[in-house]
């Protein structure tokens, strides 16, 4: 069974938690005791219906305030697929959570209230999904029951969203009219909207082709850990453990190890379950090389004629996640694949207004939840690709060296300043 990871985004009142509750409930993934707890809380709050949002709001403050604070992960399965949902809050101040939830997602669901149409939140979420390189976007036009199941209203909203998103890099976009509250078009096709010729949301999630989303062409294997047991039994054993970031490798393949650049061959690919004929994402394996080279954590195995950029200068889109603003001259720790380095922010090119996509070139700083283009210089060379070609070797995090907090998510655009 295949695994599909998706994130959900929407404003507080768009019914996002209700939709998730509905997916879990209608696919029979909600247990009776969980439902009873929700019913008790709904009753105690004086709601006149069972608020399925309470299923996903796990923290006390969330239940009391009726909001979602943090990314919550939910799990369900149908006979066709297993799903992991990253439920991300919609308020402006929690954009960093949306970026977090999207970073591991294959697909994003954006909810739009059919009465309001596109809002600032919709633009923000579509922009983030595009920046995070999400291959598939589903726009659920929700609360169709409140606009009389109107086809023309659905088409108006679709046109608004399409007009905005034509300026974004989203390869696959699907629109589905739903009512999360009543369940129409969530699991089953809605009899109330016979004019809609598409499938239900769940059917779409089950059938979507995702196997081709992985990069199986450009071999990238960041060395995570050098395996040298030094036990009597494995005295001379030396292997390189890691998770395949992209491409396919097989024993006998000619490879180079960066940064040294020496050529060698893959002697074997090993796991605790035995040797493998091939390794590809997302497998965690041990690679053994034909020659004894000096290889450490943070090095990268690739093909001689298909290498990443090796550079100490890079330009990237970053989402800033700290209360302390980012300014030119800041020195931060950077984690990229399995390598830590230090980075200097040498230039702030622009701050992106994610409502208008306007580039503010006069912005002196990036504040919490701002997205902008920065140039970085690192203390040691990194081996990277553009994020749109490779999410694993094109992404990084920035860490404040004094507080150890994660302060930014970065997506590499190109080498050099």
């Amino acid at each position, binding site marked *: *069974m*295949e*695994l599909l990871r998706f994130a959900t985004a929407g404003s507080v009142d768009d019914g996002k938690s209700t939709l998730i509750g509905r997916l879990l409930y209608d696919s029979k993934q909600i*247990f*009776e*005791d*969980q439902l009873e*707890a929700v019913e008790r*809380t709904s009753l105690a709050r004086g709601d006149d219906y069972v608020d399925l949002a309470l299923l*996903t709001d*796990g*923290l*006390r*403050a969330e*239940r009391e305030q009726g909001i979602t*604070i*943090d*990314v*919550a*992960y939910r*799990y369900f*399965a149908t006979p066709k697929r*297993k799903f992991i949902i990253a439920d991300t809050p919609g308020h402006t101040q929690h954009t*960093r959570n949306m*970026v*977090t939830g999207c*970073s*591991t997602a294959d697909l994003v669901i954006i909810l739009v209230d059919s009465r309001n149409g596109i809002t600032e939140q919709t633009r923000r979420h579509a922009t983030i999904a595009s920046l995070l390189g999400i291959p598939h976007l589903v726009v659920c036009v929700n609360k169709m029951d409140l606009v009389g199941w109107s086809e023309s209203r659905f088409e108006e909203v679709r046109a608004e969203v399409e007009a905005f998103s034509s300026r974004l890099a989203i390869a696959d976009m699907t629109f589905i009219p739903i009512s999360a509250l009543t369940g129409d078009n969530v699991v089953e096709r809605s009899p109330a909207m016979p004019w809609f010729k598409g499938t239900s949301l769940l059917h779409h999630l089950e059938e979507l082709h995702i196997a081709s989303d*992985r990069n199986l062409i450009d071999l990238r294997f960041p060395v*995570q*850990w050098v*395996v040298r*047991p*030094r*036990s009597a*039994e*494995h005295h001379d*054993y030396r292997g390189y*453990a*890691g*998770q395949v970031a992209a491409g396919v490798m097989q024993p006998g393949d000619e490879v180079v190890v960066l940064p040294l650049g020496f050529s060698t061959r893959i002697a074997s690919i090993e*796991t*605790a*379950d035995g040797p493998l*004929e*091939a390794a*590809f994402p*997302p*497998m*965690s394996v041990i690679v053994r090389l034909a020659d004894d080279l000096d290889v450490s*954590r943070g090095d990268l195995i690739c093909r001689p004629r298909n290498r990443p950029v090796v550079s100490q200068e890079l330009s990237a889109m970053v989402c800033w*996640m700290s209360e302390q603003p980012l300014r030119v001259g800041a020195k931060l*720790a950077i*984690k990229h*694949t399995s390598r830590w380095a230090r980075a200097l922010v040498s230039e702030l090119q622009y701050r992106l207004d994610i409502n208008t996509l306007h580039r503010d070139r006069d912005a002196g700083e990036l504040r919490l939840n701002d997205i902008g283009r920065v140039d970085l210089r690192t203390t040691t060379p990194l081996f990277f690709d553009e994020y749109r070609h490779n999410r694993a070797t094109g*992404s990084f995090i920035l*860490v404040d060296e004094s507080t*150890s*907090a*994660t302060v930014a998510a970065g997506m590499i655009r190109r080498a050099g300043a």
Partner: protein
Amino acid sequence: MSYQTSHLDALEAEAVHVIREVIAEFERPVLMFSGGKDSAVLLHLALKACWPGPVPFPVLHVDTGHNFPEVIDFRDRRVAELGLRLEVASVQGAIDRGELSEDRRPGASRNRLQTHSLLRAIESAHYDAVFGGGRRDEEKARAKERVFSLRDEFGQWDPRRQRPELWNLYNTRHRPGEHFRVFPLSNWTELDVWQYIAGQGIELPTIYFAHTRHVFRRDGMLLALGPFTAPRDGAADEAPFSATVRYRTVGDMTCTAAVESLAADVVQVIAETAASRISERGATRADDRASEAAMEDRKREGYF
């Protein structure tokens, strides 16, 4: 070649990556091993991540003194077979030393007292990464948990100040005295765990499978009749009886309930789990029933 990956293969690859990241970036990891099914799976994954070498860190058990003897036997046998170093943080020891006082009210358990012994063990051995078998599907506060979850110098979890966790780039930086709880099974469900146990042939304590036991009913849950749990005096509705039961979770005998079941092997347990309408902890854990936020409150204090 199709380059297909099943969901269990993907979950295993992710967990192995997380474990290796800890080995590469921390100085003093430890793995919490209770002998329960999640920790048995966790240990199995650690063996795979470290292969062909041995597991280079000890395992830690917080022992309430009220454990199922079958589970302690299993724990000790596995540790011996694998040549691991077992550290036991004893709640009884802490009570004997006067560090903790026991709640003697009927129905009380030592569940909450475990936090003290766990934090003391972490502090005295200077562990900087503590592997746990917690899963996000278990409980709604756990659904908000990070894979690498920072604990302050008091061992406390602050859900509102969690670091964003992006891609598979884990920020392992911390200050002296702080530590991380690391949850490689974060994205696994109860059913995934059982399917993996079946696929890998992972051994479990016998109490996970149907057996005959003397039990009594309290608050709708089946508790084992034993040295630490007995019906309340004069409670007619707590009359003991013999039943065929198994355990879905394994913890302290005083707060872990059995479920009536005829599932005698892994395949039958999977069929039952897939059809179950009651959540794992909801069916069996008195410790979560204290209040809506029982788990959140305990986690904030430093619980598993």
